[in-house]
């Protein structure tokens, strides 16, 4: 079930109506937990057991951590939980990759290596819900959070369906307080904001992301067959695709959660308008980047040490962040490119260069350079193998490709048009105007906008890119 499919709308309508017609906190929590299980089970019911195991483990471990009298005992409980959770993630997501990489290395060293082909099915959303549960136990260990005695609360926190399979990554410290008091529709739901956000997310995903794939996929399947202009068009459109896909999903997730009375944190804040790479990571997939900062970068030592120690931590964080996205060297390279850019920025600043060109021109140049680098990194993220990535990168950097096929200038103009709309929406003028509309006018506008949005949908609904992570 994908958020842009009609069947999800029917599912959500039922969940919404029943949720708000139930009285009392417990029935509502039970209902949302059941809805989460149905939503997840619709993907693959076989992995419900794994999901429930993860929840039960961390619910129990958090209580043991809290009850443990000494720091070392607390640490032992936390370690056991992390080992099991990351172990499960490793087996399902990375085992095949590690085995194949080890075999490649052995072959490179001249040994015979023929590992068995591992056909392990990746449970959808495992990377996301593993991070949900880990944030809970780590926060309890750090004393930032009281553990919940209610299994239902933890189960509902992890299986909350708007964020279950592709984020945003929810923190227990943010979400659990919501479960202590009953939600009120009149007090806690901003219907207009949620409906508007859902439509924006829908347009991003269904009308933009699912359509631009029509040039991205053929190009990346055979980059040598296209000219350099097509390479630029395809890479720019992939940047559009992945942003609209993931931020569209996040918008819809936030909107659905909001309509149920739960406010999730913003996951994207116009990242392509960032003037430097550090700012980009403060605005792109915010729930992941802040998770990596709090639970990986800072425990590694953060910037509390020598400059080389800080750079090591930055690189490690970004390489592991890349690997989190998928079991493949292309994701590691992607993380490495971002890590390298973050290190370069620190060096730049350390030498007091700051913004070499001050003012608006400097910001504009910084934004363009950052976007160019982000697109360059996307090439490795998107390509199925290193050979393809290098071919595309050559076209992107050197404008060099002599394939006979082209998309012409049309996608470049379309990209510029989309960029202009994006920049204008950053000013939030339309949002302010919509907020000021009387309720009847908003109802009319909303009803009138849906048919054109649907008409732009591509019938072949594409799964969200981040589902595979």
């Amino acid at each position, binding site marked *: 079930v994908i958020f842009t*499919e*009609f*069947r999800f709308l029917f599912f959500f309508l039922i969940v919404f109506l029943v949720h708000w017609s139930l009285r009392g906190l417990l029935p509502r929590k039970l209902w949302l937990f059941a809805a989460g299980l149905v939503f997840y089970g619709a993907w693959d019911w076989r992995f419900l057991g794994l999901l429930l195991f993860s929840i039960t483990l961390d619910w129990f471990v958090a209580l043991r951590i809290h009850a443990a009298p000494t720091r070392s005992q607390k640490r032992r409980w936390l370690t056991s939980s992390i080992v099991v959770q990351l172990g499960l993630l490793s087996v399902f997501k990375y085992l095949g990759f590690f085995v194949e990489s080890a075999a490649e290395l052995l072959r490179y060293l001249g040994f015979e290596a023929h590992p068995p082909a591992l056909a392990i099915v990746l449970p959808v959303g495992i990377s996301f819900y593993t991070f949900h549960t880990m944030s809970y136990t780590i926060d309890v260990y750090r004393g930032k959070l009281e553990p919940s005695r209610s299994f239902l609360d933890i189960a509902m926190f992890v299986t909350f369906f708007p964020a279950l399979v592709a984020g945003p990554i929810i923190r227990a410290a943010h979400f659990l307080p919501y479960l202590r008091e009953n939600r009120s529709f009149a007090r806690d739901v901003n219907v207009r904001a949620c409906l508007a956000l859902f439509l924006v997310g829908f347009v991003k995903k269904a009308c933009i992301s699912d*359509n*631009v794939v*029509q*040039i991205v996929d053929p190009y990346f399947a055979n980059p040598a067959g296209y000219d350099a202009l097509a390479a630029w*068009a395809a890479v720019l*459109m992939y940047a559009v695709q992945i942003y609209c896909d993931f931020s569209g999903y996040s918008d819809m997730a936030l909107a659905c959660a909001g309509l149920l009375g739960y406010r999730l944190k913003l996951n994207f804040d116009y990242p392509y308008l960032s003037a430097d790479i550090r700012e980009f990571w403060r605005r792109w997939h915010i729930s992941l980047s802040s998770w990596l900062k709090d639970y990986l970068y800072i425990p590694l030592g953060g910037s509390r040490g020598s400059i080389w120690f800080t750079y090591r931590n930055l690189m490690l964080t970004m390489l592991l962040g890349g690997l989190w996205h998928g079991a493949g060297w292309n994701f590691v390279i992607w993380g490495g490119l971002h890590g390298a850019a973050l290190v370069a920025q620190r060096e730049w600043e350390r030498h007091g260069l700051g913004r070499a060109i001050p003012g608006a021109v400097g910001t504009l140049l910084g934004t363009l350079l950052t976007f160019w680098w982000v697109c360059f990194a996307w090439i490795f993220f998107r390509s199925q193998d290193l050979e393809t990535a290098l071919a595309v990168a050559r076209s992107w950097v050197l404008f060099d490709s002599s394939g*006979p*096929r*082209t*998309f*012409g*200038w*049309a*996608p470049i103009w*379309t990209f510029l048009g989309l960029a202009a709309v994006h920049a204008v929406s950053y000013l939030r003028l339309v949002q302010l105007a919509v907020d000021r509309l009387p*309720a*009847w006018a908003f*109802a*009319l*506008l*909303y*009803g*009138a*906008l*849906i*048919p*054109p949005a*649907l*008409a*732009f*949908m*591509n*019938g*072949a*609904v594409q799964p969200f890119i981040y589902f595979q992570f």
Partner: protein
Amino acid sequence: VSRIARIGATVARLALFAAAFALSARYLRPWLGGQASNLTETKIAWFVEHGEQYDTLFFGSSRAYRGFVPELFDRVTGAAGIATRSFNFGSPASRGFDAYRALERLEQQGALRELKWVLVDPEPLEWLLRAKDKESMLALGPIDWHDPATTWLVLRYIWSLEQASLSEKLAASVEHLHSCCYFAAGIGGTQALVGALLGKDLVDRTELTDRLGPRLDGWLPLDDANVSRDEQREKFQGAERQRTYERELAVRRSEVLDEGPAAPEATVFFRRLAGKIEALGATPIFVTQPSLNLQSDLVKAHRDGVVEHLLRYDDPDDPRCAPLFDVEHRWDRFHLAEKGARLFTELLAGDFAVLAGRLERQP
């Protein structure tokens, strides 16, 4: 009082929303184009440009796409004194409903002025229930023919099937209704505009021969270099696959057509399709291609006089058709290899020439 007022205000807003939605959809629809699968779109676009050359169309699924050789067909009919210029409109997963819709679109674009003969294999209607096809119900092709009237016909047909389980019927119904919602919403209707914005013509000239075959008459044999690796795997590669096929062939041979009539919904659809073709000034000729699926509704409809012209090649016990079921002529259980396609086309063309000659002699 305030609660009643609140509910009243909510209902009023919902009514305004619904009215705005309906009006917007109503005025948008004339601006939206139809949208079939990529291959059908390519064929439609090609035909709009070159339709005046052709007087004979063959509609069907991938079996037709791979199995009907226009150039050979025209040669055989020409030798028999019935000059034709045929075009293969077959497209994977396409059925009679798609043929109806394609004819409608070609008619709207004035591309059928020379049309004389339409051969069509509507494919087994029971396939509307198959799990494999359910996945493709939300593809653009099926959405394009899921107008409310056709969807209602399909639903009635599904629920009339005695051999299907309740869960199968429910699941298939949900998929068809889902597709109908997409149709009503006009999904896919702006794909021509989207293509222009992306610099991607719906008809990719560089891929034209990959799709329409070397002679650009719509036929692409399965034995050529353009076939993907996945399709290669589908070939009869080993004895095991051949044995499986032979077992299935034995099952097909044991199938007997029952005495009952065709499903009423099938009858309605065959009449509608034949009526459409006749309204275009052409003669409808239904065809059952050589495969292991007995098209019982179509055969019964012909037996009962609903379908006037039917050319059958689906009986492995018919001595004329038997070679078409030999492993050497087949690509897989559904499709013919190039050798089989030529054999089938020759048979079809010969039978067609006899039928067409008889019809042309009629006053």
